[in-house]
């Protein structure tokens, strides 16, 4: 195969004509501006471009589009490496580095090609069979043989390798809206866009190629096309080239990937590499064209074999004649135009047509142009030369009385195939629109939904240009006259297509590929059938047909027809697998867009964030929030810091940012009734100026959330929730008020972000606050008893103050509008200097709550009942509340349910960590009795402690020896089960 440049047939289409350089496996080559990698490599006579997936067979350019299965390359270097690029779709830019794939040491001489000789061991499902062991003794049965071979297989099989480096490019997301979206800019697409624009509609035309035009670009005469592009400009139609519509989704939503900056050229502007558009349209026209098919015959993957239409593209778009001795094998009319053009460009052309007769019109043209024509003929086998991997000869099959039979051979340097066309119905299939088989046209087709999604042109199975254009116009006509069914019919050839999927002669042996990209052969399909994988979905997965990067664009139908043949059923009954997005490979980076690294999710700061950072806080992510974790003093690590903080708070005074607690205003005449229904404990008689701890259950009786609720006025409550459940509690309250109890007059407002809070805990807490108020008795026990709430001025700062405690110490929580938070904290912290005091973070907060046995999300994980956590007394027997009915289910009352307990190590010097299970000694291999939820070192007790759940709780484990098993860390520890209230169980400290 010796492709060469020829002069453009008609010079009316101005294209830039200058040379650019690129690198092929490190070697500098020259191409023309406008070349694709495929045309550039062909122009440099590179017939072998890649090695195949499994057998390492040499492969060359097989097409001129996204269906490419042979010329897959890797482009770029380092972090910019991108593997498995379809060479016919990527434009060559100055200095582009292109590499061959799956070959060592080189693509021309590849050691891996020895696998071709062992192919009988690599048939469909060979890896599944390896699990069954090697006969006759099933040696290696199970996974061991797979484990042994996996390494070699992974190394030998495959395509390109992705870079392990982080993606250095930037990507953007866009929401794009348009009245009419036209996908594809060939004859039908352009006409659809122009017709749509007539009515004044907003039209977006997208084209996956880097140039618009579709099949116009492959035509010698471009006068009509140039006129049309001028009209597109005049009509103000938005055109996006290099933009793939990769998926069609509900409600006329299309995913578009727009390739914006070509990162391999010098970029002066800072543009994103790609944009991911979520495009919404009123109507979508799929003018996505059709893909020319191959058929199965022996060695149909040799370099030098490609589709007829691709040879036409290389000739008329890239001015490249792909061979001198060209054989065309066809079963339809579409190949003849190309044959004439190739002949005119100077090649010797021979046509093998599987049909036994063709129209007189075509016949005359062929004869008068001295093109050899063999009717009733096809290719049975392709052969390469003695010292070349490329095609040199074909064996012909002729239609005789008893079917196909051998009929001599012909020499050639290029073989072009056209075994019919498959409309690109992928997008219609994404939405599940019906896909039907047309026997007459030997293709699958879809009609969209006829309301908002339409197919036009060859995507609708129309094969001639005028018909394609008319079908685009009809879409808008049919709408005007809803009953007009005179739309364009499928087909459009003089002589109908003769289905041709495989030529198989008993006398010839070799591999006939169905899906060359995944090295699936015709015999693999038959093997799948023989082994019972007859459903197309099973056959696909067993043979991996159509599961390579091209998703079976060319080969699927051959596979289906072979299966149909084996089943003795029509293709329409065998059916087709549903296409899934994306239509072609897309970058994950484009889907991620800017949502990466620190932009992956927003940082939610408390109003005291900056203040805490200025006071040396180390922050941690806790749920949605960034919170102070600990406040190290000189040289302290986390462990030293939190122990000092918790110790100081218990000894004297600690101050903590608690702004993240969920806060919801519950207001209205029925607020009391509402709270009384959602909390398990009674709220009807909560006095104004008092807070109450409450538990909310789900409908199924499990604990949902807990927190304190403050009665600020008759019909005005401030509810607090746990930090993590703030949003879901709010949603739940709204659901109850809007859906279930619309008659209740209650309004709920989330005020989490409006109020900042700080906890002041420790024996000196009241002394500190007394120093901050005008009249000392405002802070007395009588003025602010336990669970008391009131408005107060602390050094002129208006606050709400409540005497509530999470730490178990005498403690207060002070809330101010968020803007006041730093001044409040600053004032409190300055006054705290007079005491032995500290700021404490989340870690010390956690330590103190574990010591007290206070539950959080780690314990209230949605599987625990109120009794499991020892709060059963909080479920009122005298009123109704949510979850009451189902909480009394028999199984939930079982005394053997896991219950909350405290855990001490028997040897108090032992440290242990979270993640362990609780087992009875001697039964560590049986089902565990429980688990650990939270672990800490307890400064108050002087040893490590934990909270956890164990079957039957404290009662049931009194006489048992329990072991904490941590298999992963090989840690086994004798433990003692104790009450969860491990520190100050009487609560004397709470009352100061």
């Amino acid at each position, binding site marked *: 195969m010796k492709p060469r440049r020829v002069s453009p047939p008609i010079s009316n289409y101005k294209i830039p004509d200058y040379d650019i350089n690129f690198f092929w496996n490190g070697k500098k080559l020259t191409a023309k501006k406008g070349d694709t990698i495929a045309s550039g490599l062909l122009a440099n006579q590179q017939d072998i471009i890649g090695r195949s997936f499994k057998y390492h067979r040499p492969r060359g350019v097989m097409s001129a589009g996204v269906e490419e299965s042979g010329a897959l390359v890797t482009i770029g270097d380092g972090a910019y490496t991108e593997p498995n690029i379809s060479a016919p779709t990527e434009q060559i830019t100055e200095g582009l580095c292109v590499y061959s794939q799956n070959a060592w040491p080189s693509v021309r001489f590849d050691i891996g090609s020895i696998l071709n000789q062992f192919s009988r061991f690599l048939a469909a499902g060979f890896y599944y069979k390896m699990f069954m062991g090697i006969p006759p003794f099933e040696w290696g049965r199970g996974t061991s043989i797979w484990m042994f071979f996996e390494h070699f297989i992974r190394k030998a099989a495959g395509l390109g390798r992705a870079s392990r480096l982080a993606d250095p490019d930037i990507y953007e997301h866009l929401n794009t809206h348009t009245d009419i979206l036209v996908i594809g800019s060939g004859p039908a697409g352009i006409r659809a866009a122009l017709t749509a624009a007539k009515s004044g509609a907003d039209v977006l035309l997208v084209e996956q190629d880097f140039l618009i035009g579709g099949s116009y670009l492959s035509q010698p005469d471009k006068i009509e096309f140039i006129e049309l592009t001028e009209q597109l400009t005049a009509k103000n139609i938005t055109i996006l080239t290099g933009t793939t519509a990769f998926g069609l*989704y*509900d*409600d006329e*939503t299309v995913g578009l990937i727009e390739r914006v900056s070509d990162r391999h050229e010098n970029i002066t502007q800072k543009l994103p590499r790609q944009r991911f558009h*979520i495009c*919404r349209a009123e109507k979508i026209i799929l003018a996505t064209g059709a893909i020319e098919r191959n058929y199965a015959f022996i060695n149909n993957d040799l370099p030098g074999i490609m589709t007829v239409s691709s040879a036409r593209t290389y000739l008329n778009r890239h001015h490249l004649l792909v061979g001198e001795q060209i054989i065309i094998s066809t079963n339809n009319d579409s190949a003849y135009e190309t044959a004439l053009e190739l002949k005119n460009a100077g090649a010797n052309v021979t046509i093998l047509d599987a049909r036994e007769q063709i129209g007189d019109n075509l016949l005359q043209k062929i004869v008068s142009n001295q093109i050899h024509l063999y009717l009733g003929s096809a290719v049975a086998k392709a052969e390469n030369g003695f010292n070349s991997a490329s095609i040199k000869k074909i064996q012909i099959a002729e239609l005789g009385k008893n079917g196909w039979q051998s009929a001599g051979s012909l020499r050639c340097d290029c073989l072009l195939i056209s075994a019919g066309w498959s409309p690109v119905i992928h997008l219609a299939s994404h939405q599940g629109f019906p896909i039907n088989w047309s026997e007459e046209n030997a293709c699958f087709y879809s009609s969209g939904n006829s309301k908002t999604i339409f197919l036009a042109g060859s995507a609708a199975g129309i094969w001639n240009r005028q018909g394609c254009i008319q079908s685009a116009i009809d879409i808008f006509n049919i709408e005007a006259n809803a009953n007009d069914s005179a739309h364009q019919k499928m087909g459009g050839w003089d002589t109908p297509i003769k289905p041709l999927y495989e030529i198989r002669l008993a006398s010839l042996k070799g591999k006939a590929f169905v899906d060359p990209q995944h090295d699936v052969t015709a015999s693999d399909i038959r093997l799948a059938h023989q082994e019972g994988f007859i459903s197309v979905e099973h056959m696909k997965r067993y043979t991996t047909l159509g599961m390579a990067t091209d998703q079976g664009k060319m080969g699927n139908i051959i596979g289906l027809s072979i299966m149909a043949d084996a089943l003795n059923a029509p293709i329409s009954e065998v059916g087709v697998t549903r296409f899934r997005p994306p239509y072609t490979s897309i970058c994950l980076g484009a889907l991620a867009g800017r949502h990466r690294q620190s932009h992956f999710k927003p940082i939610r700061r408390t109003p005291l964030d900056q203040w805490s950072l200025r006071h040396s806080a180390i922050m941690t992510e806790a749920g949605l929030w960034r919170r102070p974790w600990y406040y190290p003093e000189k040289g302290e690590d986390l462990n030293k810091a939190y122990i000092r903080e918790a110790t100081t708070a218990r000894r004297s005074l600690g101050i903590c940012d608690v702004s993240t607690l969920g806060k919801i205003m519950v207001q209205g005449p029925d607020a009391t009734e509402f709270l009384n*229904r959602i909390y398990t404990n009674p709220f009807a008689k909560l006095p104004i100026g008092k807070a109450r701890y409450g538990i909310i259950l789900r*409908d*199924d009786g499990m604990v949902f959330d807990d927190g304190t609720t403050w009665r600020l006025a008759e019909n005005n409550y401030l509810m607090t929730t746990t930090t993590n459940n703030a949003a879901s509690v709010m*949603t739940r309250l*709204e*659901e109850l*008020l*809007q*859906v*279930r109890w*619309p008659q209740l007059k209650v309004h709920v407002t989330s005020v989490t972000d409006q109020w900042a809070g700080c906890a002041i805990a420790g024996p000196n807490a009241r002394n500190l606050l007394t120093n901050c108020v005008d009249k000392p008795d405002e802070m007395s026990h009588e003025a602010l008893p336990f669970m008391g709430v009131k408005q107060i001025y602390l050094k002129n700062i208006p606050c709400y103050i409540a005497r509530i405690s999470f730490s178990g110490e005498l403690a207060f929580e002070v809330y101010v509008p968020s803007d006041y938070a730093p001044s409040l904290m600053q004032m409190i912290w300055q006054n705290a200097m007079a005491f032995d005091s500290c700021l404490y973070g989340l870690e010390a907060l956690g330590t103190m709550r574990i010591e007290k046995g206070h539950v959080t999300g780690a314990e209230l994980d949605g599987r625990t009942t109120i009794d499991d956590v020892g709060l059963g007394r909080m479920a009122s027997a005298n009123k*109704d*509340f*949510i979850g*009451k*009915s*189902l909480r*009394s*289910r028999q199984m939930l009352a079982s005394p053997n349910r896991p219950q909350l307990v405290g855990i001490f190590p028997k040897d108090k010097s032992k440290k242990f960590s979270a993640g362990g299970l609780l087992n009875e000694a001697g039964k560590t291999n049986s089902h565990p009795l429980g688990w650990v939820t939270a672990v800490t070192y307890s400064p108050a007790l002087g040893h490590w402690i934990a909270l956890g759940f164990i079957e039957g709780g404290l009662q049931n484990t009194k006489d048992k020896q329990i072991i904490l098993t941590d298999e992963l860390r090989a840690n086994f520890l004798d433990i003692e089960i104790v009450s969860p209230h491990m520190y100050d169980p009487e609560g004397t400290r709470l009352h100061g």
Partner: protein
Amino acid sequence: MIQIICPFCGKRDHSEFSYGGDGEITYPALDANEESWHDAVFLRENIYGRQIETWQHIHGCRSWLLVDRDTKTHEIFSVKLAHLDWHILLEKNR
């Protein structure tokens, strides 16, 4: 990528909404027996076709909605505020 027409806010992307559940369940009174609560909480039809669902316009007006939707085609036939009094008021003032 369905879109839901919120009665307050208009046509919005479904990413602004949060799915609730089966909109045809009538929850029993709080003091109803275990069996009726069991049926309301745990028994669900798995409908392949039209059903009424609750959704909340969580990144919008926060209304709870009753959405009549086809689970097969994702077609939405109607959207109402779940709070019927509000719905009637809204329709009246439209």
